[in-house]
């Protein structure tokens, strides 16, 4: 027949791991790891996240895993942008560090201890320690431990009873925590497809592969062996070890002698080679010499011909001796699945022959098991070493042979993605299925490091004292000239590029002549010395380009935050740009920078991009004074208009990134502590992190939620922040109610008061929902009053719209008399009040009757208001029949005296969103049921009277306006100058400060203005889920204050009025879909005119197309399609994607598509194995979407203890298929990443990631030498 080709040219159908491999369709694959198939006909390597310096690095003690990151766009920024201002660009042009790691790739081929039989070493420990030159890089760790009888010599005596054998096993290798093993090694005849996993290896003893609980039987394959060549005729048979000895190291031989078979048998370990053994069983060559005591010489019949006899020497360890090569067969490393092809004879531990019915098997594989087990333990010890100095610590990992050849190069190229640092047993730690993998050893810090790999082996007695030289100072230090089994050649290497290039002859000619009565030696294959890496010579550098008017007079703050371990924070505050040129300004700044400890700067250089500008720009490279990762720093710049007030700009397009991290700083609260959460913001327009909203207080009593994010963690409970934004305002909400509860209890117990106003519980707010946004209050009160402090820029504050302004020294009060000129009426001292007085006009009134009740609300700049919870209870108009009289011509008059802030800068209405106070009244003749608008004290425009035209166009021709003016200008100070002296202001129309109503204004009610009843209980709820749709905010899983405690409704939603995204009228705006089904709302999101409510077990799709809250309705219910975590959904081009442990779906506004089911022409099938998926998805998984590549990415974990935690599934919206990524998001052991966001016009998936500080983590080792 002619040749044919089975062509695999289509890859785009992705993984089908669920169907039988025989039944998957064309283009589908049983397995696709790290393969991108989104381009039809091409299989390429999958992508990976990379560091993007467009957002500068920043420091943090700890990322909240899977949390705390939010990207949004603002019309406002933190850098001035006027033509007369100064401004800058800041670029992190060099990331500190660089260099490359030194490394060695090696394996320990042989490791042997020898003891004179006369030394009578019985019990104790043999410990091993690895060195680079004379510097230890591990602790001493026990390799063999015996503290009972029998001892190392395994002189078990005769009899061979089962119980005796078990005793042997138990005592010789006693401490399971001090040995190592792997159940994966159980099967000697076929290495399972599972690899020798380290998790099974650490701290365990290898089991006898033939171990059988049936203690009465041998392994069926154990046919015994007789060898006529044995010179000692007493031995008639040798049998593989009893199957009832579970310990692998004692898994050697049972020997029968001629004397009385069965009664004089011996049990011998392959690992331990004692002289008793050889007394009975001499060599195949009738030569008792240990093979390393030999010169391999074919002319000598390949016979050990040294002088060290096994008759007087005990030996332990593993020993590779290729001297058999060519004589008994090819000792070359065999294919990985059949390493047991070489017959050898019991000369060397681990090389015992192994009889079977099918012929002779070699325990060559047992040798590899020993090596693999030992090296696994060694790697563990290297990775967990905490001794010595930090610069002397190393990491190690297995590296796989990539080609089957033995070139070092092949190993060198093999592992670009190192394992976890701790070597703590992850199942992907030893990545290959080969026992003969080598070790990559590299320092934890990059840079030039050299040295020779050495070891030290020490024997300790059971009292942990090293044995005296006489009794057996068995320690052979490779670092001294003490005792070397292989003399001075305790290591040998092989040559790159020569394939199987063992220096066999060299090895074979090692004549171990210097072996004393005891000693040890290590034979290394590969690099015997570190290959020296390059030094970390990259100096962290930030280029500051100063532009704009050098005489702007603005001030610049430079905040240096050392992210490396060896550089301190520094701060330059209020550096004024007031120089003839930007060059001169930077020269002055350079001087300040150079004076900082740890920092320096380059020369001031002209910026070619702005050389033609009116004010040419110049740049200065700001650097650490030392190269290396330990000297990295981040730099943030913030501008001020003066020494106090920060600058800002409006009308720009600024992509901003909010970041909340966990601080390690502790703040005492009573007898316990809390830890602040640190909020930072990166402004792309300002090319800088804005750090001033980070909580830096040192006492909890100094808290101030109007200055920073006033959040804390407590009892190691992690915060769970939720962000949403709209209208240039960012909202940050704590959704961990458990944390809030614990903080509330703590604050109550220790009576911690809020720096602004206390919570409904009477103490400091616990992680209150806060807002951040640009506000301009510079026009408040015109020229009549000026606030001190920030007038224009970014403000932060409490989201809750709770009236909190009724007070005697701060807030709204009723004036006690209608004469604002009266003595003692002025607002003085540190009071900051709005005094309003209502009184009667005696004539001109038209329809005033009965009485009225007057209320006040705070008005916010988004048009919303508080509930009318301020009632002017001492106001005369509320008196019964106040307006009733014979002529009924009375009018209502009001007047106001106001001191907006005191000399301390404290504002009467301290929420920068508040732009006025509106008055409402109810009429007794309407049963006081309707709240009618009376007018608004507008802080910008004066009094806006109800029922009059309110236009911002030309006001000429309108009826008289009341505008803000000073008390003096309003002549309030005529008889009492105190008011004007204290910056009291009032509303004045040029002739009077009385605002008079001749008619009862009944044109707009509270409902008309706000869209909800004033009789709601509250506008504030705490919530765990939020989204914005149809210009409304939807929140869910709430708690609400009922007047005496919080009520929790985990399946309840509340919707805001249109455009009032921080107001949640409760209970009027409750949206209960399915009440109390026991399931909690996890997340809310919107797509088109649909809101998706995700609970844990169900997904609701809510139709909000009517725009009227009362008419919203559930359009679809999807059972078992809920989510566990708010990170389990994302917004894509094609709709909302989400996943749970059962599957993944996408909803495009009309149709729900199951992404695990592929429908064919005549059938459909599941394509992802449900068990694989169920074990992959957890609460810690993260879902994200990269709009640029149209890939949906699902990561296994947000914090990594193993590299496998960073695996991901990827769904391509282009080809609608799945593929899998391996370790793609790994950030280092115990490091975490935030949630995902999308950045830029391309919508690239982005996140923040912890990196090992100071460099050298195996996750990010940098280039290898």
């Amino acid at each position, binding site marked *: *027949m002619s*040749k*044919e*080709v089975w*062509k*695999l*040219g289509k890859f785009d159908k992705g993984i089908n791991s669920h169907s*039988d*491999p025989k*039944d*998957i369709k064309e283009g589908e*694959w*049983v*397995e*696709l*790891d*790290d*393969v991108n198939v989104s381009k039809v006909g*091409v*299989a*390429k*390597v*999958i*992508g*990976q*996240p990379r560091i*993007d310096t467009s957002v*500068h690095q920043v*420091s943090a*003690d700890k*990322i909240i895993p899977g949390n705390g990151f939010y990207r949004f766009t603002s019309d406002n920024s933190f850098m001035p942008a006027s033509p007369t201002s100064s401004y800058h660009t800041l670029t992190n042009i060099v990331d500190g560090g660089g260099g490359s790691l030194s490394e060695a790739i090696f394996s320990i081929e042989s490791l042997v201890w020898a003891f004179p039989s006369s030394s009578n070493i019985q019990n104790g420990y043999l410990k091993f320690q690895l060195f680079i030159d004379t510097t230890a890089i591990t602790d001493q760790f026990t390799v063999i431990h015996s503290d009972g009888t029998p001892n190392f010599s395994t002189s078990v005596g005769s009899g061979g009873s089962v119980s005796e054998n078990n005793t042997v096993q138990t005592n010789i290798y006693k401490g399971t925590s001090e040995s190592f093993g792997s159940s994966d090694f159980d099967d000697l005849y076929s290495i399972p*497809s599972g690899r020798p996993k380290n998790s099974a290896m650490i701290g365990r003893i290898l089991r006898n592969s033939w171990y059988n609980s049936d203690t009465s039987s041998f392994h069926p394959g154990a046919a015994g062996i007789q060898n006529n060549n044995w010179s000692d005729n007493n031995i008639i048979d040798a049998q593989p070890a009893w199957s009832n000895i579970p310990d692998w190291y004692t898994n050697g031989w049972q020997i029968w002698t001629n004397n009385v078979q069965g009664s004089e048998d011996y049990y011998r370990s392959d690992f331990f080679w004692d002289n008793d053994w050889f007394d009975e069983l001499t060599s195949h060559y009738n030569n008792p010499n240990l093979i390393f005591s030999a010169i391999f010489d074919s002319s000598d019949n390949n016979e050990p011909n040294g002088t060290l006899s096994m008759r007087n020497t005990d030996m332990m360890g593993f020993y590779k001796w290729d001297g058999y090569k060519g004589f008994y067969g090819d000792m070359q490393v065999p294919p*990985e*699945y059949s390493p047991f092809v070489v017959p050898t004879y019991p000369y060397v531990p681990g090389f015992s022959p192994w009889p079977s019915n099918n012929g002779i098997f070699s325990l060559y594989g047992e040798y590899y098991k020993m090596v693999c087990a030992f090296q696994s333990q060694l790697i563990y010890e290297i990775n967990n070493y905490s001794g010595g100095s930090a610069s002397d610590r190393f990491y190690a990992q297995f590296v796989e042979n*990539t*080609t089957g050849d033995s070139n070092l190069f092949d190993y060198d*190229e*093999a*592992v*670009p*993605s190192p394992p976890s640092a701790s070597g703590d047993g992850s199942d992907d730690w030893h*990545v290959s299925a080969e026992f003969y993998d080598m070790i990559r050893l590299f320092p934890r810090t990059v840079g030039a490091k050299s040295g020779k790999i050495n070891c030290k082996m020490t024997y300790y007695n059971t009292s942990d004292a090293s044995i005296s030289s006489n009794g057996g100072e068995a320690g052979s230090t490779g670092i001294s000239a003490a005792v070397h089994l292989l003399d001075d050649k305790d290591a040998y290497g092989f040559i790159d590029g020569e394939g199987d290039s063992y220096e066999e002859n060299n090895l074979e000619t090692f004549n171990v002549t210097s072996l004393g009565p005891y000693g040890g030696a290590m034979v290394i294959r590969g690099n015997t010395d570190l290959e020296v890496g390059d030094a970390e010579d990259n100096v962290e550098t930030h280029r500051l380009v100063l532009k704009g008017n050098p005489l702007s007079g603005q001030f610049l703050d430079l905040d240096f*935050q050392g*992210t*490396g371990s060896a550089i301190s924070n520094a701060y330059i505050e209020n550096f004024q740009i007031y120089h003839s040129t930007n060059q001169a300004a930077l020269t002055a700044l350079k001087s300040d920078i150079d004076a900082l400890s740890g920092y320096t700067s380059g020369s001031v250089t002209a910026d070619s991009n702005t050389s033609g500008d009116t004010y040419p720009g110049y740049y200065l490279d700001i650097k650490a004074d030392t190269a290396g990762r330990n000297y990295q720093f981040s730099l943030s710049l913030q501008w001020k208009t003066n020494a106090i007030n920060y600058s800002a700009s409006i009308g720009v397009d600024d992509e901003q990134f909010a970041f909340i991290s966990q601080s390690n700083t502790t703040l005492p609260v009573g007898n316990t502590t809390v830890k602040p959460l640190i909020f930072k913001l990166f402004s792309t327009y300002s090319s800088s992190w804005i750090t001033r909203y980070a909580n830096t207080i040192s006492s909890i009593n100094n808290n101030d939620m109007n200055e920073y994010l006033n959040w804390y963690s407590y009892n190691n409970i992690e915060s769970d922040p939720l962000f949403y934004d709209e209208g240039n305002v960012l909202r940050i909400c704590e959704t961990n109610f458990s944390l809030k509860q614990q903080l509330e209890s703590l604050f109550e117990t220790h009576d911690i008061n809020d720096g602004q106003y206390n919570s409904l519980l009477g103490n400091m707010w616990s992680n209150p929902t806060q807002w951040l946004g640009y506000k301009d209050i510079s026009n408040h009160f015109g020229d009549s009053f000026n606030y001190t402090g920030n007038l224009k820029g970014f403000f932060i504050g409490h989201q809750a719209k709770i009236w909190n302004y009724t007070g005697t020294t701060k807030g709204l009060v009723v004036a006690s008399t209608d004469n604002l000129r009266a003595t003692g009426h002025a607002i003085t001292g540190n009071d900051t009040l709005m005094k309003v007085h209502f009184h009667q006009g005696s004539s001109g009134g038209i329809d005033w009757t009965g009485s009225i009740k007057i209320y006040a609300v705070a008005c916010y700049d988004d048009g919303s208001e508080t509930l009318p919870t301020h009632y002017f209870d001492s106001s005369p108009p509320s008196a019964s029949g106040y307006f009733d009289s014979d002529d009924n011509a009375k009018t209502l008059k009001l007047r106001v005296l106001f001191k907006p802030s005191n000399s301390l800068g404290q504002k009467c209405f301290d929420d920068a969103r508040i732009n006025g106070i509106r008055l409402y009244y109810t009429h007794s003749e309407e049963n006081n049921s309707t709240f009618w608008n009376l007018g608004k004290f507008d802080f910008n425009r004066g009094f806006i009277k109800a029922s009059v035209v309110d236009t911002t166009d030309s006001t000429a021709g309108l009826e008289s306006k009341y505008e803000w003016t000073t008390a003096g200008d309003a002549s309030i100070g005529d008889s009492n100058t105190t008011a004007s002296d204290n910056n009291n202001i009032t509303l004045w129309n040029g002739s009077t400060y009385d605002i008079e109503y001749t008619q009862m204004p009944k044109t707009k009610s509270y409902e008309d203005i706000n869209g909800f009843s004033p009789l709601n209980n509250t506008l504030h709820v705490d919530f765990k889920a939020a989204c914005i749709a149809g210009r409304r905010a939807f929140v869910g899983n709430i708690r609400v204050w009922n007047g005496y405690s919080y009520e929790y409704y985990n399946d309840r939603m509340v919707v805001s009025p249109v455009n009032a995204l921080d107001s949640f009228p409760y209970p009027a705006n409750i949206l209960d879909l399915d009440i109390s089904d026991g399931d909690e709302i996890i997340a809310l999101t919107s797509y088109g005119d649909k809101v998706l409510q995700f609970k844990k077990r169900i997904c609701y799709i809510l139709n909000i197309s009517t725009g009227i809250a009362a008419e919203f309705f559930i359009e679809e219910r999807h059972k078992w399609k809920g989510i566990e975590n708010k990170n389990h959904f994302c917004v894509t081009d094609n709709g909302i994607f989400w996943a749970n442990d059962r599957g993944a779906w996408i909803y495009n506004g009309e149709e729900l598509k199951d992404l695990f089911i592929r429908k064919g022409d005549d059938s459909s099938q599941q394509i992802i194995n449900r068990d694989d998926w169920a074990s992959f998805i957890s609460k810690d998984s993260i879902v994200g979407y*990269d709009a*640029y*590549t149209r890939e949906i990415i699902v990561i296994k974990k947000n914090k990594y203890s193993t590299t496998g935690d960073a695996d991901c599934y990827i769904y391509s919206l282009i080809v609608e298929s799945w593929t899998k990524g*391996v370790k793609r998001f790994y950030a280092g052991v115990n490091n975490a*990443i935030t949630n995902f966001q999308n*950045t830029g016009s391309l919508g*690239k*998936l*982005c*996140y923040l*990631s*912890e*990196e*090992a500080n100071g460099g050298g983590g195996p996750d990010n080792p940098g*280039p290898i030498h």
Partner: protein
Amino acid sequence: MAKEIKFKTWNDIATSTSNFKMTTKYTDLGAADAKKSILGIIINLNKGSTNTNTSNAFFSLRFKYRTNLDENFGTLITINNSYQNTNQTQNVEIVKYLPKPLKNIYNFQLKIEGIAIKNDFSINDVGIIFRKYRDTRIASLNE
């Protein structure tokens, strides 16, 4: 001690992997009852042009196979190439025959492992070269 926090973005151009793995369906190569011999593989691939400043583009592929789903995969062929100093994307077709054909098989499953790939690399087509000993038409009931 504070940690460095780095901003990262997803990039669909990889720098490296040692975990590239593709496993095909278990196939009878179109003739369920015919014995076949696997003679070799043909692969059309694209050697990328992206060299980083620290390493040159490189790939090492290992083709594995099994003829029984209960068996482990055995190595069929390895291919590797380091293409230093190359800044041109190259399309390459490699035909590699086995030293000894894999004879007398009925079914076959192929696994491609990219055990060391650096920088751009993609596979356009993979083909298994085989020969049928005889060809018998049978009705398949498992489709």
